[in-house]
């Protein structure tokens, strides 16, 4: 028997039934149904709910735009960042959004390399989420440089001052890591879209659609002489994205870990940041996929309860790694016998930001443990509610790492607290508007399920299906 799943379960012995994989697509859907249904989401008349959701998102994006213009026109001082908390909500939000993006690349690349075929129905939306999250993230360090018109100093180009970038600085590594990550994610996403854009082109009835999808599909014909290069490119892009995604959050963690501030200067940061990113990212994938599938009910045959169940298992697994890292940090602070290190963690738990620390602990370590119970992994309302804890908890984690550490460093004379301004708050809310706007546009104009990959995991896609084997 090949890797394909078996449909006629009745003919099997009980032993065989135990090892047969459950079908990835339910209700014996055909190629035609998958193509028709997924394309019809894009081709149908714009539903009312879409406009209802788009309006607040666009308004919030407008608020974000206003805040950005106000900040550039006035100065970075409109944020609450001030001595000693020079990195505050802006870097918190940057790390938060970048982290969310990681689940998309994990699903599209790492699960591809490990031959996890269930990824096919969720990878498109998850990759889109990656791109939009990175767009939201990139706003913050771009503005944090202060004089935005000098941001080109980040790029390694010769200039009249005879100054080059300090390539030993983790902040410059970050520039390279994040811009590479965004570029490669766009390439990977677009490569995956080409065959599906060809489907939309071939189905198009209006002139505008024919032109737009025709140009975007680049003349794809689905010949095997094309598929063989295509599959090689896709495989290698997955192979390249895998170390890339692990490196990006490691480099982000170097921003902290290579400094000498107590609470930041630890070697555990890279793996702990990567696990946290996957943890928070999967929660965000579920947060957006569950409502999307509830609006388009037949998608439940493609994104099944089995998918949700698996993603919840990833959440509880990575959440436990994060919990282990938190406890290990405390242990190392004690074991190091360094009074500053000990004090940093004491202030995290019992200092002025104790509420953020315990919110983080509860949301990231305790709340997701409920996913050990199958009932909570398979009931969508519960899954959605529980996923909000990691979403919030991962923001708190970054806030705890950044703000509590800076607020209490070596000498009490340098201590201080951070208070967000209205610009801080509205910019953060505004990025959710931007994220929502981009995601709504995506589900309206592009197929949110990777049609050709889902077709390829149907049992009849196996060339030996129904044969003599």
């Amino acid at each position, binding site marked *: 028997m090949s890797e394909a799943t078996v449909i006629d379960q009745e003919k099997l012995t009980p032993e065989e039934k135990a090892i047969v994989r459950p079908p990835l697509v339910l209700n014996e859907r*055909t*190629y*035609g149904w998958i*193509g*028709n249904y997924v394309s019809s989401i894009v081709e149908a008349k714009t539903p009312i709910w879409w406009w209802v959701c788009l309006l607040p998102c666009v308004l919030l994006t407008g608020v974000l735009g206003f805040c950005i213009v106000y900040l550039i026109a006035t100065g970075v001082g409109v944020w609450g960042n001030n001595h000693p908390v020079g990195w505050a909500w802006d870097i918190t939000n940057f790390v938060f959004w970048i982290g969310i993006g990681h689940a998309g690349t994990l699903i599209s690349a790492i699960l591809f390399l490990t031959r996890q075929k269930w990824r096919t129905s969720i990878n498109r939306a998850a990759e889109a989420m990656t791109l939009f999250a990175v767009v939201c993230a990139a706003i913050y360090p771009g503005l944090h440089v202060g004089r935005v018109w000098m941001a080109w100093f980040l790029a*390694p180009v010769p200039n009249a001052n*005879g*100054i*080059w*970038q*300090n*390539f*030993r*600085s*983790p902040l410059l*590594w970050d520039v*390279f*890591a994040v811009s*590479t990550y965004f570029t*490669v994610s766009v*390439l*990977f996403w*677009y*490569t995956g879209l080409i*065959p599906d854009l060809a*489907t939309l*082109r*071939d*189905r198009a009835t209006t002139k505008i659609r024919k032109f737009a999808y*025709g*140009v975007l599909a*680049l*003349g*794809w*014909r*689905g*010949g*095997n*002489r*094309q*598929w*063989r*290069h*295509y599959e*090689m*490119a896709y495989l*290698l*892009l997955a192979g*390249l994205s895998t*170390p890339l995604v692990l*490196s990006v959050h490691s*480099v982000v963690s170097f921003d902290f870990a290579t400094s000498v501030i107590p609470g930041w200067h630890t070697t555990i940061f890279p793996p702990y940041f990567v696990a946290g990113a996957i943890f928070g990212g999967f929660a965000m994938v579920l947060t957006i996929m569950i409502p999307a599938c509830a609006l388009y009910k037949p998608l439940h045959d493609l994104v099944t309860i089995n998918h949700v169940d698996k993603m919840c298992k990833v959440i509880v697994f990575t959440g436990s790694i994060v919990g282990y890292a938190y406890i290990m940090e405390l242990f190392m602070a004690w074991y190091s016998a360094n009074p500053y290190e000990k004090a940093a963690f004491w202030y995290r738990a019992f200092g002025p930001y104790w509420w953020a620390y315990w919110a983080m602990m509860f949301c990231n370590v305790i709340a997701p443990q409920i996913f050990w119970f199958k009932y909570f992994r398979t009931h969508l309302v519960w899954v959605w509610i529980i996923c909000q804890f990691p979403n919030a908890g991962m923001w708190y984690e970054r806030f705890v790492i950044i703000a509590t550490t800076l607020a209490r460093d070596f000498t009490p004379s340098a201590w201080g607290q951070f208070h967000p301004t209205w610009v801080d708050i509205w910019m953060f809310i505004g990025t959710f508007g931007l994220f929502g706007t981009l995601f709504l546009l995506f589900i309206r104009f592009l197929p949110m399920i990777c049609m*050709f990959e889902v*077709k390829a995991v149907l049992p*009849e*896609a*196996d*060339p030996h*299906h129904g*044969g003599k084997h």
Partner: protein
Amino acid sequence: MEASTEMNVAGDPQSQTYGVAAEFDTAAQLFHAAEKIRDAGYKKFDVFSPFPIHGMDDAMGLKRSLLGKLIFCGGLTGFLTAVCLTFIPSSFIYPLIVAGKPTNLFTVPAFFPIMFELTILFSAFTAVFGMFIMNGLPRLNHPMFNWERFKKVSDDKFFCVIEMKDPKFSERDVQDFLQSLGGQNITKVQED
């Protein structure tokens, strides 16, 4: 075998023939057809499917794609670019001493992230644009698109075409051959 009937023609009957194409219902049929076309000694042919079919390269007698080797070259270029980008300014042109750290070869661990990122970036560009070039994309038209039924290739139908450029090509033989393989709607596809 019954005698061949007149074939349908897709495209302008006045222009040159591109090839003779047939339609199949399942991936398995297309797979076995490809094996037989390969065994019959045809070289200039292609099979079309809504998704990549596992093992089709062997069935068609195609070798492994060269793209992987090309991407290695791309990655190497990226790595060397990063080596130059970091060492030339930081060690030779504008050595900048930060926190008393060395500016010579010993500084290399600090440059690893840049080298890694540029290796990945250049490889990814090579993968995507190399794939486009090897596939002849973007290409906004192709003779196969003259055939109305071919639109189903991105939906749920499977096609194959034997091109006129093939040395063994003869319209009548190919038509009979495709019919014997179980191909339906056998059609002569014309160039533009």
